[in-house]
């Protein structure tokens, strides 16, 4: 199962395209590995991502405090013992930030995966089941997109018992429509290509065409979308935690840190700034990587990414 047209080449069949940023031709189909020449922004994104992953994996071992250990040194400024100070319960901010990194990445990934699976499967199902199925599935998709994400997620979390499962489910459902639309659009575009017609003429069944020929070619778009939705999941989770409806309170997510710190902005501003900066930096990293992915996978089509 290999893609017939390597990413980066023009859908009309030309051998090479102009790379926007460099204004010189990049060689077409090639299998040799070339060290990726990336823009500064992208490099920053990759480095930050790497750091975040490293922190998430190793972090809990390197911080000296338990993130849930309360103490009587409340709202303390950064010091030798508490590298980023303490919050209103005397908990070490640095330790909580690290746990928050891991939580954000894990929660975000799982939620985005749920969205990916739900969206893609729903889209494929809809497209495969004729006129009515199509209308139904994509009607629901548009319905969910029409509702403001925050309210939708809020209502869902309150409806299902609050906790990690409901948050992940709510986030996944809230973003599934984005994947459904991308799947549908990419699918239709690929299906219009001559090789699909050719395969059909040669007797391949629609299912085989879908799985063997089309799916590999739309993974690029899906991966790009994944990179865009993931940070949105993280932010939405932060908003939910801020409103008091996030995951179980034991988990020190950044949203919860922001919520509790926002009452003490004068006494301990660093406690509020830390998770905000962390959130912004991680979102930046994802955005840069997502941008680069989009540049590689569909430079010609303009996908509206908001």
């Amino acid at each position: 199962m290999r893609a017939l047209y390597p990413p980066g080449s023009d859908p009309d069949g030309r051998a090479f395209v102009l790379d926007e940023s460099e204004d010189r031709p990049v060689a077409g189909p090639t299998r040799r590995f070339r060290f990726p020449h990336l823009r500064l922004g992208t490099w920053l994104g990759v480095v930050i991502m790497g750091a975040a992953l490293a922190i998430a994996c190793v972090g809990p071992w390197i911080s000296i405090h338990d993130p849930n250990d309360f103490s009587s040194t409340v709202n303390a400024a950064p010091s030798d013992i508490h590298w980023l100070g303490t919050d209103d319960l005397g908990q070490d901010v640095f330790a909580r930030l690290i746990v928050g990194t891991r939580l954000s990445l894990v929660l975000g990934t799982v939620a985005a995966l749920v969205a990916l699976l739900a969206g893609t499967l729903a889209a494929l199902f809809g497209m495969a089941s004729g006129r009515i199925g199509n209308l139904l599935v994509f009607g629901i998709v548009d319905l969910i997109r029409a509702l403001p994400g925050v309210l939708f997620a809020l209502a869902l979390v309150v409806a299902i018992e609050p906790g990690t499962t409901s948050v992940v489910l709510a986030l996944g459902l809230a973003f599934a429509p984005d994947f459904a639309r991308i799947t549908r659009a990419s699918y239709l575009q690929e299906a219009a290509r001559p090789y699909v017609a050719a395969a059909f003429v040669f007797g391949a069944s629609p299912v085989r065409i879908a799985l063997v020929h089309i799916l590999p070619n739309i993974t690029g778009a899906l991966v790009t979308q994944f990179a865009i939705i993931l940070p949105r999941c993280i932010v939405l989770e932060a908003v939910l935690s801020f409103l008091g409806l996030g995951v179980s309170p034991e988990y020190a997510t950044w949203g919860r840190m922001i919520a509790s710190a926002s009452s003490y902005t004068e006494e301990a501003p660093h406690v509020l700034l830390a998770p905000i900066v962390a959130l912004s930096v991680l979102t930046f990293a994802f955005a840069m990587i997502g941008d680069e992915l989009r540049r590689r996978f569909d430079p010609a089509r303009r996908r509206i990414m908001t």
Partner: protein
Amino acid sequence: MSLQLLKPVVAGLLGLALIISPAVADPKYGGVLKLYWGTLDTTDFHRHTGTISLTHPFAETLTSVSKDGQPKPFLAESWQISSDGLTYTFKIREGVKFHNGDTMTAKDVLANFSRIRAEVKKGWLTSAMEPVDRFEAPDDRTFIVILKTPFSPFLNLIAEAWILSPKSAGWDKTISHPIGTGPFTFDSWTPQVVLKGKKFSDYWMKGKPYVDAVEFDVRELADASLAVRSGDLHGAEVPLSKRNILGEDKNVMLDFRGDTSWYFVSFNNKTPRAPFNDLRVRQAISYAIDKPAILNLSAGESGQLVNQMAAPGNFYYDKAMADADPHRQPNLDKARALLKEANVDPAKVTVRLIGEATDRSVAPIVQMIKRLGFNVENKAYDDLGYQKALSGYEWDIFPGGSGPRNDIFLRFVRLMSDGPNPHLWGGVTDLEFDRLVREASISVDDTKRRALYLAAWQRVIDNYYTVAIGHTPALYAYRKELRDMSIGFNTSAHRADGGIAFAWFDR
């Protein structure tokens, strides 16, 4: 006396007048008072669902709870209670006018009480109306209540039986525009945004109120202290944590509410599952809870460590009982010993704990229980969610709190087996406890009543139904230019001996 002597005397008198005049300055009229003082939940005051902070400015009651928790005359000038405690005779104040110009009589009072008793099937006053046999209004100034059994909290409870004009729109169904006797007329209400009132010129306290109008900000604000410091609000309830910062601000004055909120850790008493039905396990957990630390984290220096529902200063508080509390300091060794004795291995037990999502003291309590070695499943809900979850009784421990009440009876009634919403305390089903509380409520003798309530609470302590951690007050902040403003025993903004009718702007 010669003119020579007169001059220094007059100068001296003038000087004296200048020195003491700021202290006895005359209140000035005018201004619009902006306050953040709680919220309003309905225009039909008889059907209120728990918030009483903003009703008194518009409609008043026969009695008013003063700062020390005792009922003071308000619309009732005086009252007499028969020696058997069954008959209350109220002398209704003369010359009190409703906002529409009508004079309030005992007949209006009777109409209100009858409406509450007959129409309002939900609400705080249901328990007050239960022991009532009948009402009488033999003349315009006398209102009589005859009870079936004595009921000691009655006078405090009717401080929430607002007297409205029967001509108020919607009297037969749901009042949409309340016409009361209060210092301000009910001008407009945008729910969860703002509540406005205009000065009532015919108010029975002559010369009051001093301000022209009042605007209550009824949004849900986490922290109104900033608005008070910047002058956007003249007075507000503010978080305790801002006590120090506000204390340093020279433009702001601080005040504490009379009645406190109390915090506790309840066990499931209705359907306790092993091992929490073993008293030793409950004792062990109580030894693990670090009460001073919890109080410090939630209330700083304003918290009081008390193992009872009544705080020091309250008539029903008992110092001996408080001193005898073995859990004033945590004792993990003793806790572990008790668990061993009960043959319980905490590592094999998962404690199901329910908490309210924004309650910051839940996390430390979870940690304390974990220190004992238990596993904790911590479920956090929003305001309503946790109440619903608690009433399902699929839990073991609930750390919670409860706010101010006009009478201690309203706190005890929640732990009775047929009480309202007993699930916050695990659904206590103790018939002896019920008996003691009921006897206390019908007792006319203060000393006997106190002893009965204390006996009832001793049962709670001995059986570890709920473990009281302590009490915290509520903090209020006023601008310096707002004079003579105060908060009383409960959250109400207007009382017989203080509140917004007495406040004025010194400009």
